[in-house]
């Protein structure tokens, strides 16, 4: 496994493509997070809210995105993590997670992080400040 500290500005960590979003993913996240807003799990409730169908919890995608950094837990930790929710994630969407190193200011590595859907549209965009131990 390569380390984050070897990364040059402009380079990215290995991107992750998630399995297509399934209802059970969102049911599991509802249970684990305690966010039972039914627009994430029940079709009729999503439709009543004016949505074409259920949508993923924004925090589900944000939670997934952070796993790009988990392998490096012995090198440092996520000190700051900020996200703007830019688009909705629907059932069967295939989400790709990316992180690109933008700036090094010892001991901090600043990454731009992105979650894209199968059409290449940004659904989440933000920053991670990874602080080395």
């Amino acid at each position: 496994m390569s380390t984050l500290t070897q990364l040059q500005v402009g380079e990215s960590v290995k991107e992750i493509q998630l399995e297509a979003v399934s209802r059970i993913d969102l049911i599991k996240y509802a249970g684990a997070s305690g966010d039972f807003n039914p627009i994430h799990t029940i079709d009729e409730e999503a439709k009543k809210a004016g949505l074409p169908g259920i949508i993923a919890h924004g925090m589900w995608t944000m939670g997934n995105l952070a796993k790009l950094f988990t392998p490096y837990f012995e090198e440092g930790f996520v000190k700051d993590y900020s996200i703007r929710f830019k688009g909705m994630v629907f059932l069967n969407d295939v989400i790709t997670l990316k992180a690109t190193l933008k700036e090094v200011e010892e001991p901090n590595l600043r990454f731009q992080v992105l979650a894209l859907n199968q059409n290449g549209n940004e659904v989440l965009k933000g920053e991670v400040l990874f602080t080395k131990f």
Partner: protein
Amino acid sequence: MFSNQVGKRSNKVKNDVERGAVKKFAEAIGDLHPIYFDVEVGRNSRFKNNIAPPTFPRTFDYGVIDRLNLPTKGLIHGEQTFHYERPLVVGEEILCYSEVKKYFEKKGNFGEMGFLVLESFGEDLAGNTIFSSTSTIVISEAVRKVLTK
């Protein structure tokens, strides 16, 4: 309409970084790294224990902000931030509370939108902040009309 709520805080609530809850959460976000649930890996790490994923504070109880009546429907989660002094460690106790940080309105594609920023905190029992987070909640004009009825 939420401007008069700015500065209001909830009571502090004690939360446990519970082993089973961390494992379930890590599974739910597909982050199956053993540092989150394998006891041996935790013990041999620099933390001497397992840790929790960065977005785990979503699961905590932050208490109730008096008379902050948010609708249960029609809210949009616009932005979210987390700031950490260190990772959360499994088994520790955290005091959590929230505060209404700011409220503003601006014109958007769907009329006049309201933006409510809630800031949440997690402290150790000695009062040292371990993490803080902000959630920006977007409230549409239609929803606000219902609220003022």
